């Protein structure tokens, strides 16, 4: 599965089956759609990011060069949204990673009922984030389950989503709940390919389980761990639905993420050029982080046994 990770770049598709042929009948329909709704919008977004563009005032559209970028980098709102997103990413990623690792280890040890446990743990990851957010909105509500239980214990109720200090952590907790199963399944699949004889030999020699985990299992899981970190980073940077449904970016913009900021600029203020510049800054940032992560964590991954 190592070669199948999209972050590895295009896997060479070469083989004896290749023929020189006319592939265009098969490729053309998708090729046209990809060009129209993939490549063209990407190029258009880049052009837009250099324009002042309000769709309601086409007469005022003009080239502004790097002004949108300069304006974003000088804007407190941009940095605030970036900071909120960074807190979200840095707060959820390690927790999700550790929990998913533990859950995968437990699933890997289960003999009977593994299928049930795997399904139960993985299912939430396939749900619409809107549904997840609505369910947690009901749990976090002033009159909701969590406050009901606190009251039953004689404790004062907590304003999970209305308190500036608690809203973002509440969303982060929900997000961890919703994504642990996803990453646990990825890690479980890699665990299934562990070298059986090596583990058996280690056990017969009486090597402690934790040492086996560290010396044999962890190196083996390295490629999938890198994949999970990259994927989780990409996804976390795009967080939007959760604050949109739970808090509308509030209270006091404490949950206003980068994509929410982009959405707000583009579709409430109609600053489409500026919003496109934010999108490219997001793209640039995610790209740089992915490269940095590959450099840092990818070291040694090449030497690890391929999953």
């Amino acid at each position, binding site marked *: 599965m190592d070669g199948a990770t999209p972050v590895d770049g295009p896997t060479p598709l070469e083989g004896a089956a290749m023929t020189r042929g006319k592939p265009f009948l098969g490729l053309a329909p998708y090729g046209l759609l990809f060009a129209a709704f993939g490549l063209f919008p990407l190029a258009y977004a880049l052009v837009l990011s250099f324009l002042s563009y309000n769709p309601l005032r086409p007469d005022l559209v003009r080239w502004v060069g790097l002004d949108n970028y300069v304006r974003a980098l000088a804007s407190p709102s941009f940095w605030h949204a970036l900071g909120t997103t960074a807190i979200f990413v840095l707060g959820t990623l390690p927790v999700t990673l550790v929990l998913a690792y533990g859950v995968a280890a437990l699933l890997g040890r289960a003999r009977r009922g593994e299928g049930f446990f795997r399904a139960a743990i993985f299912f939430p990851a396939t749900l619409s984030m809107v549904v997840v957010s609505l369910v947690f909105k009901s749990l976090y509500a002033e009159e909701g389950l969590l406050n009901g239980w606190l009251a039953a214990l004689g404790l004062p109720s907590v304003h999970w989503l209305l308190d500036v200090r608690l809203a973002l952590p509440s969303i982060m907790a929900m997000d961890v709940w919703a994504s642990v199963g996803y990453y646990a399944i990825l890690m479980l699949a890699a665990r299934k390919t562990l070298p059986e004889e090596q583990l058996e030999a280690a*056990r017969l020699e009486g090597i402690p389980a934790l040492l086996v985990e560290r010396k044999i299992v962890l190196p083996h899981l390295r490629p999938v761990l890198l994949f999970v970190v990259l994927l989780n980073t990409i996804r976390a940077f795009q967080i939007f639905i959760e604050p949109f449904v739970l808090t509308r970016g509030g209270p006091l913009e404490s949950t206003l993420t980068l994509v929410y900021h982009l959405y707000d600029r583009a579709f409430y203020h109609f600053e489409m050029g500026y919003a496109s510049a934010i999108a490219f800054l997001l793209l640039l940032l995610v790209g740089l982080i992915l490269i940095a992560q590959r450099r840092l964590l990818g070291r040694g991954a090449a030497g690890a046994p391929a999953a």
Partner: protein
Amino acid sequence: MSARKAGTGTYAALTAIAILSLAPLLYMARVSLGKGGDLPIAPADWFGRPLSLEHYRDLFSGGPMARFTLNSIIVTGIAVPIQILLAAAAGHALARARFVGRGVFLALATAFLILPRQVTLVPLYLLLATFGLLDTYAALILPHLADPFGILFMAHYYQTMSPELEQAARTDGWSPGAIFWRIVLPLSGPGLAVVGVNGFLITWNAFLHPLVLTTSESMRTLPVGLALFAQSEHRVDWGALLAGSTIATAPVLIAFAFFQRQIVEGVLKGSGR
């Protein structure tokens, strides 16, 4: 697999995690099957109160929920079969033929796999607006058809499939079309199941694009309709909201029950971002 004995501790922990994982969803279903707008707090409320379809009846009598559901079904029902056909046709072409620009195409498609989708949100909005397609089913469907996951997945799939049968048919004078429809497609079931079920999940659950590309209530899909419904209410009707959420979840549960293995395979190959 490790042959370590799984002790009681392992099963106790797994059971606790499974409960934690499913409890919020069972709670959602329980609230949706209750009466009135308040949330049941105590376990006695969950099990003691009578079950009722009141919220579902209210949702579908006059409210826009029936329309949201219909829209989601239409969009998914059109987009997913087209995605499957595109993936088979383009994937097969990429796997079998060598041509100029093939490497570039593969590189671009792979780059799009990890590209944050928000980058193309604004231009897609302007593009569809230019052609008067905002707030139409076309706006809800077309962007999904450009997703490169299925094409790349099927290209790999065909790469591992022996071309002998196709070559024999070509020697016998079959046309490329006949070879594709009568030989390639019938052998593509397992791969197309992965493409189809993952395409279904992504299309059914899509939110940001449908939110932006539709403006009238009658064009909202389920996730968008539910999210805006939750925002618009001053006093939230939890029963109705969670009944709508349950409706949005039911098809996902059914897909999961039948295609869990294919969903996992899609995840492993990078279908989600």
